[in-house]
């Protein structure tokens, strides 16, 4: 269930390191990523995130069914698992997971890799599908930010955000089991925010201070 510590090779660590300092060299992470690929080190989690983006681009631009099948193979079993944890029957969870993947296909053109990792984006689709199909409620969503002139997203921004999301995932995985469980249950819909407050005495309190750093980095990457 946890991200394998074994994959945290020195190369992976050096990939993430430049974001920690206030480095004036904004291109550093991109250069690092390129260097990693050239060295041909085994696939890291950040590379995996970049691969999802490429697969989603192929779905958007070429209606590429092979790329879609790869996304499906990775995400559908996890979506089903997530939805079952939310108290949904296996059949309903599977139906809902399929609906989520249909939406992934239909909305591929709306995905912005400078704003979210593919995992984040697919999670929001699943969350909304759960509210729609299972809770049978409407989901009010904010306005989208006004779109700028059509220009390709900056690779530095894209890679930076993927790395920060990866760090966030690791911070979450490294939490003590009890704290991590509380956060997970909040997302399964098991616990309301006030129940978390009463169980821990602190809504995110100590828990949050542990993932605070990762969240700060993420915010920095998204701005």
């Amino acid at each position, binding site marked *: 269930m946890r991200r394998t510590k074994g994959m945290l090779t020195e190369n992976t660590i050096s990939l993430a390191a430049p974001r920690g300092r206030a480095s004036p060299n904004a291109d550093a992470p991109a250069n690092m990523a390129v260097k990693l690929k050239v060295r041909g080190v085994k696939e890291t989690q950040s590379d995996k995130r970049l691969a999802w983006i490429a697969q989603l681009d192929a779905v958007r631009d070429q209606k590429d069914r092979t790329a879609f099948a790869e996304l499906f193979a990775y995400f559908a*079993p996890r979506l089903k698992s997530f939805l079952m944890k939310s108290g949904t029957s296996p059949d309903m969870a599977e139906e809902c997971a399929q609906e989520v993947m249909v939406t992934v296909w239909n909305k591929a053109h*709306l995905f912005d890799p400078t704003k979210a990792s593919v995992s984040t984006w697919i999670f929001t689709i699943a969350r909304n599908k759960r*509210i729609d199909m299972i809770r049978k409620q409407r989901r*009010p969503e904010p306005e989208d930010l006004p779109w700028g002139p059509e220009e390709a997203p900056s690779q530095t921004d894209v890679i930076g955000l993927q790395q920060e999301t990866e760090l966030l*995932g690791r911070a979450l995985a490294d939490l003590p089991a009890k704290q991590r469980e509380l956060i*997970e249950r909040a997302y399964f819909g098991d616990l309301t925010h006030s129940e978390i407050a009463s169980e821990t005495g602190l809504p995110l309190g100590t828990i949050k201070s542990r993932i605070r750093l990762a969240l700060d980095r993420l915010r920095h990457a*998204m701005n």
Partner: protein
Amino acid sequence: MKQIKHHLTESLLMGYAAGTLPEAFDLVVATHVSMCDDCRAAVAEYDAVGGEVMLDMPPMDIDVDALAATLAMIDKGAPVPKPRQKARGVFPAPLQDYVAGDLSAVKWRKVGGGVSQMVLKTSGDATVRLLKIPAGTAIPDHGHHGTELTLVLQGAFFDDTDRFAAGDIEVANEDLNHTPIAEAGADCICLAASDAPLRFNGIMPRIAQRFIGI
């Protein structure tokens, strides 16, 4: 947009990202986020946490035909969604969806004391309404059983705690007994959601409560 001073709480941000709030609260959060870049960024963070939680799930076996079934659904075609443009007018887009228009489309009903309201249709136990409070008017002193969210859309009000202007949200719980007063100037228009009936103090307000239904 002027500087927003009063923001969503961490609990509301996380609840909205997790998708566990009642619809009435979701509407207030989505409306505030449409007006507030800080809270938009914070929701994105909590969305990212949700994505990592989902990613960490032990993969569950899926039907061998699942991919084929999904591609078949894709082949049937579906309307291709467009990004939702920023709404023109006083109300952000998510609120306009519920009102079926902007401020001019609101069907106000007088509820006494010069205050008008329009209850918006949502499912679940919590309720949400638009309130129009004439400048200088007070909402009767009331406490809260549950949580009450009040988002200012136009004008401003102040109470014992602070001043709340357009974009500001006040999150009140059981501890807060307050008498919000609309500031002189424009009418104060608020979007208010509550997960329990308000508790007015004194007899006159009780009558008002029966009319207002909050």
